[in-house]
């Protein structure tokens, strides 16, 4: 029996083959244990791969235009920040300015969800509305407080909701989600949600809740971070 080529198995997984090309491969996989095992091995490699960080050499480096943009923004923001501090406190203060928490809360009195990104040198928190490129890996951190379950989900600009999983909460305090998320190439707003509940929610209930406006789900706290993909 002729086996499916390694490349064809990859293309099948990536959804790159049309129905005409896929049909004989599906039939072969149903009958050939060796090829089914090779496909399963590719799935395992993929699962381990997505959990590993992107090597620093492959992460995008800022162009001279972007560096210039950051410098311009700093030059504009510094006097604004200084003026703001002067108005609020009456006198200028020394040291680092207070930074707004990188989270947007829909409910509750403390930060519940943070999004972090890995840069070439280190990791840093993202701010609501921050612009990111596709391919950027985002690490979510949540504080479940007294709740027993945390459901992590996302919604893109087209309104597509993905539920990444429901985790057992480990109690109060900031906890890093056990997986990172890679931004795809859909442009526009990308929201990430942490839904904190005491019972495990059904995935379709989460889907429905996140498609509503305003977002509502009984007996839950919902935190979100909204980023912009460009």
């Amino acid at each position, binding site marked *: 029996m*002729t*086996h*499916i*080529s*390694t*490349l064809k*198995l*990859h*293309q099948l997984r*990536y959804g*790159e083959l049309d129905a005409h090309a896929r049909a004989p491969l599906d039939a072969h996989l149903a009958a050939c244990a060796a090829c089914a095992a*090779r*496909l399963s*091995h*590719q799935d395992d*490699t*993929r699962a381990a*791969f*997505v959990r590993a960080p*992107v*090597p620093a*050499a*492959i*992460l*995008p480096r800022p*162009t*001279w*235009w*972007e560096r210039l943009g950051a410098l311009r923004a700093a030059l504009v923001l510094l006097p604004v920040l200084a003026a703001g501090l002067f108005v609020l406190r009456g006198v200028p203060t020394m040291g680092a300015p207070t930074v707004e928490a990188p989270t947007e809360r829909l409910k509750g009195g403390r930060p519940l969800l943070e999004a972090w990104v890995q840069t070439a040198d280190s990791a840093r928190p993202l701010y609501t509305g921050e612009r990111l*490129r*596709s*391919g*950027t*890996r985002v690490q979510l951190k949540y504080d479940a407080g007294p709740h027993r379950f945390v459901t992590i989900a996302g919604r893109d600009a087209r309104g597509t909701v993905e539920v990444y999983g429901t985790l057992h909460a480990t109690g109060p305090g900031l906890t890093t989600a056990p997986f990172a998320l*890679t931004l795809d*190439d859909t442009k526009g707003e990308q929201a990430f949600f942490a839904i904190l509940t005491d019972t495990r929610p059904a995935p379709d209930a989460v889907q429905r809740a996140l498609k509503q406006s305003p977002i509502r789900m009984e007996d839950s706290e919902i935190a979100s971070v909204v980023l912009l993909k460009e």
Partner: protein
Amino acid sequence: MTRPGADPLDITALYCRYGDLVLGRCRTLLRNEADAQDAVQEVFLKLHRYRDSFRGESSPSTFLFKIATTTCLNRIRTRKRRPEDPVEELPPAVEATDSVLDRLAVRDLVERLLAKQDERTQDCVVYHYVDGMTHDEVGDILGISGAAVRKRISTFRASLRDAPPPWLAEIEP
């Protein structure tokens, strides 16, 4: 508006989508996990050099598979020229493979190839025996005819006639 210096070839996005394909490829052909990881980075950094031909390709997966194969075979050839370099085996966790041949057979095949065959024949044999591609599929990826691939594979088989390896009988009884 396109910003000056902006790069439409988003290598990080390609890595996130196809990195597992390249990693699997490198693990199959190279015998060392660290070497495989290095080769993955080399493949994606090479995309800068091949950007024009990359844009002409209909399938990024095919293009990356090809570059990964070339990169690995070049590494093996360099290693062959410097046999004093120690080669660490892959850990058992990655001993499994998604190729048609098992890892021991791949190693045997590569060693036989490097001993006697030219580079184009090496490419043909790896795609055909390790990856299970048909002659025409190999021809498509290398830009030669299926008949030319068949001829090169026949030449390789003829070189094995005196002492055919067991894996050959398994896949071509």
